[in-house]
């Protein structure tokens, strides 16, 4: 075994593995670089370098074990947190997604208008006097001309080859591009504005048609503002990711860009009535839901563990059955439960002989959620409680019994306190998990019922994370900045509650 790890075969194997991983990472680096994701490209490049140095040298033996974990932690935990924290300080929503440079470019591209008559011409694209040009056919007026970026050269129809539709096919000194040259010429010609008259120019709308337009919005680089050449309006950077008219901020240009607004997304949570009201009720329900979930799943899990801790007939079978809900994918379970709660054809109403609209009533919906979560969660606590029960020294229990304690006293005074000390971190982790149990809420009730007609933003069973999702993705306006701020608040809440819980349980001390 030792020779395998140290011999030439192992070195060759290591080389092959490194080669494969390195190849994939370099591929991803190139791809990220090509997409303009320079930070990701840099991270991947550094990763390749670190992998090569760590595994092909003896710089640090411990690093050989830690490096994959560290890299994955940076990629999938730290980076999203940093990104979320950063974006929570930005006006980052539908309409303010791209960068400022891109926004300026797009406003310029859109800032034109066709002439009043909507004039358009058939065109041929090609070259004239070594430069890009178009051969324009004004077939209605029987006029023809060549247009370059700076000149417009009138042509005599007699000198042209004109097809049956009155469109000029060729002209002296004009070299039309062949069809197979279109693709390579696309980028060059698409951005060009060919001379027409006065401030009007001809822009390509495909390879066959030119539209007469003029630029209405002009960007002033020095003043960082857009000027409407026709109306005289001036659009200045409003500091929130849009160019807007200074004394009429509602009049702004689109698209905007993501711009820093610092703590505005956080203050919104407390100042905007639309958010503040639902946030309080959602937070309250989130705490109740997470607490009830932990209490009920732990209670049932422990009860079953205690019951099966004694040698009874068919114990293995019972244990296997109890683990089944845990072994089944939770998404499937939730969807099945969703069907069982259906008002018309659900098994639960059929069994009870009722016609309860489970997901239309806030109370029933909350009950259904707790019940389904109990089903999903109790096997976990059954497993860990079973393990923990084995860890409690039997001498303690025997001594208590000899001292005259009854089973209830033994459980209350010895078993439960010891169990709680062992399981406290898991209970806190379970609370944190349920605090963010998005799948259950989203798949079972969708956060509902919600009184849409009363203008309620949040549903009765929405927890903070599903409410955040609604804000971020639930409507046509996706407010990612605000959602990031709420996510951060959730993170701080869970971190505080977890820390408090751990300190209270004195578990940290016992681990030191």
């Amino acid at each position: 075994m030792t020779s395998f790890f140290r011999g030439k075969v192992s070195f060759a194997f290591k080389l092959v593995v490194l080669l494969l991983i390195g190849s994939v990472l370099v591929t991803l680096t190139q791809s990220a670089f090509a997409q303009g994701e320079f930070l990701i490209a840099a991270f991947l490049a550094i990763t390749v370098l670190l992998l090569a140095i760590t595994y092909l040298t003896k710089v640090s033996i411990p690093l050989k074990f830690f490096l994959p974990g560290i890299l994955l932690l940076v990629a999938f935990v730290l980076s999203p947190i940093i990104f979320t924290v950063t974006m929570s300080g930005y006006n980052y929503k539908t309409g303010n997604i791209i960068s400022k440079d891109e926004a300026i470019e797009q406003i310029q591209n859109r800032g034109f208008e066709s002439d009043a008559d909507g004039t358009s011409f058939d065109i041929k694209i090609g070259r004239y006097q070594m430069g890009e040009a178009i051969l324009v056919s004004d077939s209605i007026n029987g006029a023809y001309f060549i247009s370059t970026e700076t000149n417009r050269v009138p042509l005599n129809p007699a000198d042209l080859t004109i097809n049956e539709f009155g469109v000029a096919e060729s002209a002296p000194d004009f070299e039309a591009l062949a069809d197979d040259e279109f693709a390579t010429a696309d980028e060059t010609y698409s951005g060009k504005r060919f001379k027409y008259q006065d401030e009007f120019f001809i822009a390509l709308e495909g390879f066959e048609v030119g539209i007469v337009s003029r630029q209405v919005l002009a960007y002033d680089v020095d003043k960082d503002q857009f000027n409407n050449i026709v109306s005289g309006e001036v659009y200045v950077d409003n500091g929130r990711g849009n160019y807007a008219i200074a004394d009429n901020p509602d009049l702004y240009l689109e698209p905007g860009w993501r711009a820093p607004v610092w703590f505005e997304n956080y203050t919104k949570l407390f100042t905007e009535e639309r958010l503040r009201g639902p946030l309080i009720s959602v937070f309250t329900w989130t705490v109740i839901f997470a607490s009830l979930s932990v209490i009920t799943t732990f209670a049932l899990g422990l009860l079953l563990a205690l019951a099966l801790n004694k040698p009874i007939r068919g114990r293995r079978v019972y244990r296997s059955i109890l683990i089944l809900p845990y072994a089944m994918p939770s998404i499937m379970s939730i969807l099945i439960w969703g069907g069982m709660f259906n008002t018309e054809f659900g098994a639960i109403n059929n069994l009870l002989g009722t016609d309860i609209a489970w997901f239309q009533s806030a109370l029933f919906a909350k009950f259904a959620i707790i019940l389904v979560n109990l089903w999903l969660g109790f096997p976990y606590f059954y497993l860990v409680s079973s393990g923990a029960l084995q860890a409690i020294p039997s001498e303690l229990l025997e001594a208590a019994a000899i001292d005259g304690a009854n089973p209830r006293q033994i459980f209350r005074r010895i078993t439960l306190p010891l169990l709680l000390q062992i399981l406290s971190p898991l209970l806190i982790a379970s609370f944190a998990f349920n605090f963010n149990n998005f799948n259950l809420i989203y798949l079972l009730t969708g956060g509902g019922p919600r009184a849409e007609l009363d203008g309620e933003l949040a549903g009765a069973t929405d927890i903070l994370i599903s409410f955040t999702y609604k804000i971020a993705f639930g409507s046509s306006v996706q407010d990612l900045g605000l959602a990031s701020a709420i996510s951060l608040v959730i993170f701080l809440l869970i971190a505080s509650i977890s820390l408090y819980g751990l300190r209270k349980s004195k578990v940290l001390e016992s681990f030191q």
Partner: protein
Amino acid sequence: MTKKRLGVVGVIAAATMAFSALVVPSAYANNEIVVWADGDRGPNLVKVLAEKGDWVSGYKITVKSFSNFDALKEAFDKATDASGPDIVMGANDWVPTGAKSGKLAPVTLTAAQKARFTPGQLFDLTYKGKLYGVPVDVNNVAMIYNTDIVKTAPKTFAEMVAVYKANKTSKSLKAGLCVAGGGMSWGAHSIFSALGADAYQFNSRDQIVYGRSFNGTTFGKNVRTLLLDGGKKSNGFLPASDAGCKDNFIDGKVPYAIIGNWEWKDYVAKGFTMNLMPVPGVVANKPGKMFGSVSGALLTTFAAKHGVEAGAKSLLTNFFGSTDGQVRYQKIEGRPPAEKGAALDATVSAAQRGFGAAASLSSLPQIGAFLNNNAGGANYWDSAPAYWTAVLVDGKDPVTEGNKLAAIWRANTTAGKSDL
């Protein structure tokens, strides 16, 4: 590090680079126009382009299909410069958000090209005065009735309710009218409208009226009279959900159903004739208005970044917006073509014409700026089904809820004005 090790590292580095160069994903070739479409339209586009692919000389047209419309929308929302399409087959209500976010690019059609479409169709794909694509297919629903139960086309809503009540027990009917296509918001608008609740109001000159909504009390009273028993409990005529509607109608358990124009083949296959019509109103000859919208081929800003902007624009006009292109495409896709020449083509089926005719009788333009707006507390898509649930399931007062609905839609329309 020894020289030998350094050499090995060098060899590995070189081999890694060489290997990765072989497998590096190719960026968009500059003669390739990439079109994104949903799982229905995409494969059909591929078939059409396989028949004839030279719509734009010198370009290869690649179609990428997504499993469904939602998946397509999600992918487009997340598309980047490198991965995004040059053209996307999207709904008209994608236009405002796509344009705001800088993902859609404007196109300018010539007068002749514009004349191929109705002003309403072009309006559907317009945002703040700029057009962002060409209309490809008409999206609408229409009501169909089962001639085994209903002998003649109904003239009023009450007539349908009477038919349902008369046959409810003898034919074991599960409902009178249900929504099989388009859901309880989009598909059900014609029911709202038939009972007096249009999503927004137009004046006699076809101009949008801001600050006014439907009369919630009148609408609520109509609901109470026609859909409730004893003024409170649902009479079973209209289910609050669209679940099972299609199957129930096909099984002969529902006499009237609202179906989508994308699914007529399923009904024809089961022997139904396409006796399509708008939902009759409270009074005769005042049918409910269905949403008549278009889906379009939308130009993206990625096309310019991929260096194929002119090619993509040519593809829009030469294929997607042309008579020939739409005839070929809709022959396979089976929706009513948007382009006028294609709509009149002899190859267009009776069902496609039927939907077009129903739409021409009574339709309402689908204006995303109003419908997607939630200034009133909820957008149209959430508030419409919520009304049916509140009244037909929860037993709430139809007039009170009707007035709430009217207030929401009025606020949304007023707030949406700036997005037009």
